[in-house]
Structures are given as C-alpha cells and as structure tokens.
C-alpha cells in the first residue's frame, strides 16, 4: 500500500517538475534554433546557437545592458538592505511615541500602485535634472533612488527583528558597544538568513524592473536588460532565436544570485543557532 502511494507521489512530482522546467528547457533549446524553427515549435536542439549569439552581440548593446542591469541591481540591493534593515531594526528595538503612526503611514504607502505615482515621480526627476543632472532623468541613479526605500522591506525587517533576541542588545550595551556597533556587530551577523532572503527579493525585483527604467532611461547606452529584450521583440519580423538567447543570458545572473544565496541560507541558519 505504502509502495503504491510512493509511486503515485513520484509520478505526480515528476509531472509537476517537468511542467515547471519545460518553459526553461524550451527556452534553452530555442536559443540554438533559427527563428522559423522556434515559431514552428521545434523541440530538438539545432545548430544555430553561434549565429544567434553573434547576431545578438554584434547588433545590440547587450554587454552595456548587462553591465547597467548589474550596476543597478547590486547598488539597489545593497542600499535596500541597509536602509530597510536599519529602519526595521529601529522601529522594533527603540521606543518612541509616534513610531506606530509613522509605521502605519509607511505601510499605507504600500497600497499605492506605482502607476499612480509614476508621473509625479517623473516630474520630480525632471526638476532634479535641472539642478543635479547626475541624478536626473536618463541616469542610472534615477532608477536606483526611488526603489531603495520601500515600505515592504522596512516591514519585512521589522517582522524579522521580532525574532531577534533583545537581550543581545542589552548585553552589547553593557559591554560598551555603541548603538551602531550593536547593529552592525550583533544584529547583522545573526540575521544572515533574513538578509539572504531579502537580498534575493531585492535583486530579482531590481533586475526585472521594467516600467520605471523604461520611462526614465531614454538613451540606449543606459538601457537595462528588460528594455533591451523589449526592443528585440519589437520588430515586424522578430528573430525569436536571438530573443531566446538574450533571455537565457538575462536569466543567468538571477539564477546565480539565487544559488549563491541558497548557500548563505544554510550558513545563516547555522550562525543563528550558534548565536
């Protein structure tokens, strides 16, 4: 009886795995095929990989786009984690009369869809352009700045700080550490898991961010990967082989970050047990 149950479990899991992996598999196969074979739905790897790659790298600024995306994603992730965790930590650890009010306002801001603040934000950066062109429209800074302070991450870190042993803060104070020291020397190392999870989310969000970069980045030399892919598909007869190649290349960094962080996940777990 148990055996039959097991067989069913494995069959079901195999089917589920296949269904979730298939699009990725098809993408990888398609990058080796000609456009016409992709539209025909060919499932066998072809011999067109080299042509697709050369075509992509010769005709489009893919390297620039990857570098731009990396700059944006890395800086955004670092700043988001820093600001979000500092704020979340502060909200939870320190006592202040108005902190719940401020926190509620912050949470409320999560309810506003980005589309609603897009135009005012664009106006704002138009103004910034006039005084500080380095942070204005058509700069990578304009993509990074509005996304580093998000209510979500403050909320996320505040929730997780609840699991952090307050006694450690007291112990740190007793041993003469300053508040900043406590944060960086005690809080950060013992919350690695939280940071790893947040980093994955922040990196993916930034890497896949489309609408705001689309509007604020106009020059091709500032375009990020999603913008480039959107351009690739815009032709009257799009080359699906090339598009698939670009998408596979664009997927690699997020996959890489995920696997790297997965390791840290485990390390972070062990660290918190020790702490």
């Amino acid at each position, binding site marked *: 009886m148990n055996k039959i149950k097991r067989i069913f479990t494995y069959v079901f899991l195999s089917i589920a795995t296949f269904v979730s992996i298939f699009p990725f598999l098809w993408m990888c196969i398609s990058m080796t095929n000609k*456009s*016409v074979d*992709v*539209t*025909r*739905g060919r499932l066998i790897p072809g011999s067109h990989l080299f042509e697709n790659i050369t075509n992509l790298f010769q*005709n489009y600024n893919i390297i620039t786009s990857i570098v731009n995306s990396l700059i944006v994603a890395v800086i955004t992730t670092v700043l988001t984690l820093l600001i979000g965790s500092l704020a979340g930590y502060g909200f939870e650890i320190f006592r202040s*009369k108005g902190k*719940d*009010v401020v926190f*509620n*306002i912050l949470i*409320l*801001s999560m309810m*506003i869809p980005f589309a609603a603040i*897009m*135009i*005012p934000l*664009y*106006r704002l*950066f*138009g103004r910034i*352009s*006039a005084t500080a*062109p380095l942070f*204005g*429209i*058509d700069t990578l800074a304009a993509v990074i700045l509005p996304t580093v302070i998000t209510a979500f991450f403050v909320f996320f870190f505040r929730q997780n700080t609840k699991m952090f042993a307050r006694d450690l803060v007291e112990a740190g104070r007793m041993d003469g550490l300053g508040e900043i020291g406590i944060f960086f020397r005690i809080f950060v190392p013992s919350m690695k898991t939280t940071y790893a999870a947040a980093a994955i989310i922040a990196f993916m969000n930034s890497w896949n961010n489309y*609408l705001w970069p*689309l*509007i604020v980045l*106009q*020059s*091709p030399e500032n375009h990020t990967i999603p*913008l480039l892919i*959107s*351009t690739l*598909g*815009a*032709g*009257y*007869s799009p080359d*699906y082989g090339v598009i698939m190649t670009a998408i596979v290349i664009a997927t690699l960094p997020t996959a890489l970050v995920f696997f790297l962080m997965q390791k840290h996940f485990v390390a972070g777990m062990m660290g918190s047990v020790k702490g």
Partner: protein
Amino acid sequence: MLKNVFKRFSWLLGLALLITMLAACSEDDQTQGSANDSGDEGTSEFEGSLLAWAWDQNFNVAALEIAQNYFDEELKMEIVDSSSADIVQRLNAGLSSGTMKGMPNIVLIEDGRAQTFLRSYPNAFYPIGEYFNTDDFASYKIAPTSYDGKQYGLPFDTGVTGLFYRKDILEEAGYSEEDLQNITWGEYVDIAIEVKEKTGTAMISLDPNDLGIIRMMLQSAGSWYTTPDDEINIENNDALKLALENYKKLMDSEAVYMVSDWSNYIGSFNNGDAATVPTGNWMAPSIEQAESQAGLWRVAPIPRLDIDGAKNAANLGGSSWYVLNIDGKEKAAEFLGQTFGSNKDFYQDLVTEIGAIGTFKAASEGEAYQIEDDFFGGQKLIYKFSQWMEDIPQIDSGINTNGIEGILEAEMQNYLKGESLEDVLNNTQEQAENQFK
C-alpha cells in the same frame, strides 16, 4: 487612554497626509502648464543634433538612416530603437508631466494611436503641413495623421493588406489564381470550407483575441466602429453585421486553425497549417522565412465585404512621423519634408534595401517597385501593394478603437455560442456608450 486614541487615529492621520501630498502634486500640475512651455523646463537645447525614436532596427530605424543620405545639409541624428509600446509609455510620461527633457525631435507613432496623442496633447506636436504636400500621399493616411485641420504627421509606411495564399493547396481544392482575384469575404468563407474538405488543411489561422480580420472587412466597406464624429457605430452598422456573420460562419466551419499568440500565428503558416494569410504587406518577410515554401505562395487583393461601394483594399497597421514642439522642430520638419515628404529616389532605396513600402504615391512609378519576387512566383509584390494602397477607403478610426474592440471581443464569444446577432450588437453598443461617452 490618550495613547489609544492616538493609535486609532494614526491611520486617519496617514491618510490625511497622503491626500495633502496628492493634492499638492495636482496643484503643481495646474500651475506648471502643459507640455508646450518646454523652454524653461527641459534642457533640450538644440545644438544641431536631432533625436529620433522609432522601432525595428531593420525597418524604421534603417529608413531614418537612409533618409539622412538624402538630406542636403550635414545632419547629426541619434536614433533610439524601442518598441512601439515603449515609445508610447515614454511619450505619455514626458508629455503628461510636461518634462520635455530627453524627448525626441522626431517620433514614429502607429496610425491607430496617433489621434489619442494629438487630442490629448494638442500643443506638444508641431504642425508640419507646410513642409510637404498632403496630396502626394495615399488619401487614407491623412485622417489619422491630422487633427483640427492641421497636418501633424508625415505619412510613412503603409499597412495595405493582401490575401497571401498557397497556390498549391488552393489548386488541390480546385481553385485557380483567377478564382481568388477580387472576391468577397462571403466567397472567401465558401472557398475556405471547400479547401478544408478537399485538402484537410485549414484555410486561415486566427487568434480569437485579435480582431484584425474584422477591421479589414469593415475598412473595405469604408465603415468603422465609430462615425467620424466619434459616435459609437455598432447597432445599426450593416457592414459590421455582415462582417460578424462572415466571421461566425468561418469560425463555425472546420476551416480555422486556432492560434494563441503572434509566434504561434507565424508558426502556423510557416508550418503549412494554413492555406491563406489575409493581412498587411509587412507579413511578407515572415512568410518568406519558410524557405522550403518558396514559389508556392501568391498574393491576391484582399477580399471585400459584399456591400455596394466596397473596395478590394484595406489597411492594417502602418505608422507616421511626428515632430515634437521643442527646439529643433524646424530642422526636423525640413528633414522629413525633404526626404520622406518628397523624394522619389529615396523611396526606391527604401524598397530595395529594407522592403519598406511608403505611402508616397509617385514612388510606385520608380524601377524598384517593378521587382519580381521569386518567392511569390515572380509576382510584382511591391507594385501590386502600392496600387491597392491607393484604393484603400479613408476612415477615421477615432480614439476608441481598441476599447470598443475589447468589448466586442468578449461579446463575440456570446455570438459564437449562439446568442442572436442583434442582441450582441445592442449589448456592445450599450457598453461602448457607457464607457466612452
């Protein structure tokens, strides 16, 4: 106690703060004025270099590059290649915020979307009617590119349609090339059923979410979902009734190969799953990519609706150039006028180098238009299209086409399931009036 009260009201406070912030923003909008006072807000100082936005590296962008060879002044131009949808987003953000920094001098806009821009931001575009003669262009292009008596767009490529068909499959079903010349959509459906019966191949591949075929039927009869005065024209629209009847008859037959998206659609005829492709001329390169089918394809005039005055000509897609009302506008308009606006030789280059068919009428007299296309059995594809182009009935598609079509798509499903045509049209009319009036 006090703390509790404070806590309870904190949400309210937050809301109040937000509302004040939003209000501050909108007030700001009013005082700042619209997009046309670009001078003091943006920094798009004209230094002799023009900025252009267009899509498709091998087509529109390439056309702009070739055009520079035909302009008699030395010109610096930067061309940004973005998808049409991306261009629309950027333009909307820029024009609605009044922040003209980074906005292009020249921008390509699809004809179907142009009116939305021209009506929403009337001062943002620069009228360029003086820089070329509108009579030189196919007349159907003028309505979508002009507004309030002024010409804003310089008509570029045509979306003139044709009936691409597989000669071999149709012959197998007993139809010669002559049988497909200047037919009606009713005849097309009859042929479709016959072809499916005799050869087993579907006549056409259709995506239920794309009503392009209805648009072609309507335009052949000079009709549209709206009247030129922007009234919703569904309920008592005889052309639409006939179009929907044809569509249902086709869908009810076995002759349709269903597809779900664009690549699927292209794949269907590349794979030989559909015997005909009634669509815009821009589909030719996608058909030609199936090299094994070389010589098997032909093109005939698009079918027409069985209504008096209907023509075997319709348009699907196509776009035009616009000049933004910012520094450099005169230069941009001169450039467009001298090249796209009047140069016949330039159009020959466009055809030979990128296969783009413009809407400049005199261009079809040139040699490049006489080229015979081996893939299509030696037919003079370009010349044929340019001739049909001049017959396209002029319609004003207004600004609500996409919205109305969205309603119609949903109602269409009810019609296909058996609801009466009258009810479907009445419902569509009612919903459209509620939404767009």
